[in-house]
């Protein structure tokens, strides 16, 4: 009697009571389905997040300066020098200086984000210039009153085309030299609702010190080392590590991915509890089955079945039941993932791929088979230990 024959016998027994077998499996089916669905949605979210980050550029370092004592800021020249001194690590830099003040097109006044940046800013952020031009070094050098606007401003206030038109920012007249390509659906107060001017001009208009910079690193693999270079420089300037903060987008992404993964694992583990509940259900039915089949067990033992044959018959039957449940759960999980993908895409308007990972599927199947073995063990032991004389007399 080999395991394959026990397996055949198990299939026969399961097929003989399909409804009961299905109800027994239901816990496992639901558990596996839930795990697969949650992991799938989690993967989808994680991928979506990574994509969003990548579109912003994961190779950037954000520098915020809070200042300390009399040293309140770091000059753009110092930052440019830092980049030039470390060509192996840092490539581009742009000050980021937001200014307050209303914006006026013709007679219409509105609020939008106005930011002073360098000529490299659009490359750092990977923004494309759709029409006209970006900012040039001469604009920065000459503190020119020129600006580049986001697609929302262009489409909302300049239906006839924005390039070459006039705009009034904080009481000064500017010429729009370029329009950026749409980044995020051209929504109000979104990424596309923005005006960019040379940081030198912004500095003059807002008369506040520049305390934010964005830099790009040469290689994302060297993000940590690059970050260290900037930090060391700032520590030299301020002598206190609380005076500034350098944030690497790569690190930020890693941190957020990690947090999301923890959430997914916790949710999957909660879903996994139903697998254990399913296992208890299998144990319950196997115990009933052992009682119902006491006479069969007695007959088999009288005819020469050793304890381990009876044992393996019941364990294999429980494992088979559980594994079939696992397989059905995987199928249901895939089906629901497809539904979830369409629902989420419809609700959020974003293409969110709900993709169950192969690893999750394999683990779910393995765990469900293992649960069958684990929870089938006790009933199988009970069956194997039956005294053949009593079992034969059992009605």
């Amino acid at each position: 009697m080999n395991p394959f024959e026990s397996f055949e016998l198990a299939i026969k027994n399961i097929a003989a009571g399909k409804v009961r077998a299905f109800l027994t499996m239901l816990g496992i089916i639901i558990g596996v389905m839930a795990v697969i669905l949650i992991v799938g949605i989690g993967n989808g979210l994680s991928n979506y997040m990574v994509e969003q980050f990548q579109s912003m550029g994961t190779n950037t370092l954000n520098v915020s300066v809070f200042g300390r004592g009399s040293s309140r800021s770091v000059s753009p020249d110092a930052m440019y020098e830092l980049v030039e001194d470390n060509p192996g690590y840092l490539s581009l830099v742009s000050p980021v200086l937001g200014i307050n003040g209303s914006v006026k097109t013709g007679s219409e006044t509105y609020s939008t984000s106005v930011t002073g940046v360098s000529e490299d800013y659009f490359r750092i952020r990977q923004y494309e210039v759709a029409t006209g031009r970006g900012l040039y070094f001469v604009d920065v050098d000459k503190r020119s009153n020129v600006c580049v606007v986001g697609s929302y401003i262009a489409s909302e206030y300049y239906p006839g085309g924005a390039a070459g038109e006039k705009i009034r920012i904080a009481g000064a007249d500017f010429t729009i030299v370029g329009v950026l390509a749409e980044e995020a659906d051209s929504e109000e107060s979104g990424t596309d609702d923005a005006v960019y001017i040379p940081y030198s001009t912004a500095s003059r208009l807002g008369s506040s010190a520049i305390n934010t910079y964005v830099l790009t690193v040469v290689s994302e693999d060297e993000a940590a080392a690059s970050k260290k270079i900037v930090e060391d420089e700032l520590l030299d300037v301020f002598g206190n590590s609380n005076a500034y903060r350098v944030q690497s987008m790569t690190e930020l992404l890693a941190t957020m991915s990690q947090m999301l993964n923890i959430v997914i694992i916790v949710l999957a583990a909660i879903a996994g509890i139903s697998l254990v509940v399913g296992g208890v259900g299998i144990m319950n039915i196997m115990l009933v089955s052992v009682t119902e089949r006491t006479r069969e067990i007695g007959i088999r033992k009288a005819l020469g079945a050793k304890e381990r044959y009876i044992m393996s018959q019941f364990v294999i039957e429980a494992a088979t039941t559980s594994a079939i449940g696992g397989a059905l759960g995987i199928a249901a999980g895939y089906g629901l993932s497809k539904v979830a993908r369409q629902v989420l895409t419809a609700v959020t308007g974003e293409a969110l791929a709900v993709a169950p990972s192969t690893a999750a599927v394999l683990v779910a199947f393995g765990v469900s088979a293992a649960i069958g073995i684990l929870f089938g063990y006790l009933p199988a032991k009970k069956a194997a230990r039956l005294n053949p004389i009593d079992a034969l007399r059992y009605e």
Partner: protein
Amino acid sequence: MDAKPLIEFRSVSKYYYMGDNVVRAADRITMTVRHGEFVAIVGQSGSGKSTCMNIIGCLDVPTSGEYILDGRSVGELGKNKLAEIRNEMVGFIFQQYNLLPKANLRENVEIPLMYSGVPKGERRRRAVEVLTSLGLGDKLRNRPNQLSGGQQQRVSIARALVGNPALILADEPTGALDSKTGREVLSILRRLHSEGHTIVLITHDGSIARMAQRIVRLEDGRVVFDGPSEEAGI
């Protein structure tokens, strides 16, 4: 004496403890059954014949005394060894047939061979052969409950024979049958005996016991008669 002993009981006792009372189900029984014999063990209920059967069939072990089956002492063996001996040495025929209801006839007959590790094809061939020799060759795929009582008992005889055991142990084989089919079953047993099988028949019914060569009568766990059936006075 002619043939070698197959079953030897040497002062075999079996006690059950019920509260403070000791029930002596078998009380120092000594007897021998030789290869090729047809022996009936008779007795009223409570005489100890079921206990005897369980010990002979290696389903149970004696409390004291020695049971030697085909030269091997059985009393000290573990459960798995006993299962092996049952499988190889004993063919059981039960009063209630004890067939598996969900398995067809061929599968039922194959069970002992399955546990002795006979390969599938060989198993199938032998099961079909034995069932055919007992006139059930056309019902191999039927379930036991599609058969009459007599036919079901023939299936259990086939199952007892298929492993070619040294001993056929029949426990009230006609108990659930009407007298006509009962006689048919008994004539099969006689035929098997004439073909050289050793048969031990357990019964409470003297008229059935008379079919055997030799009768062992039990009362209160003791042997009160052991001799040729003509001399048993029943």
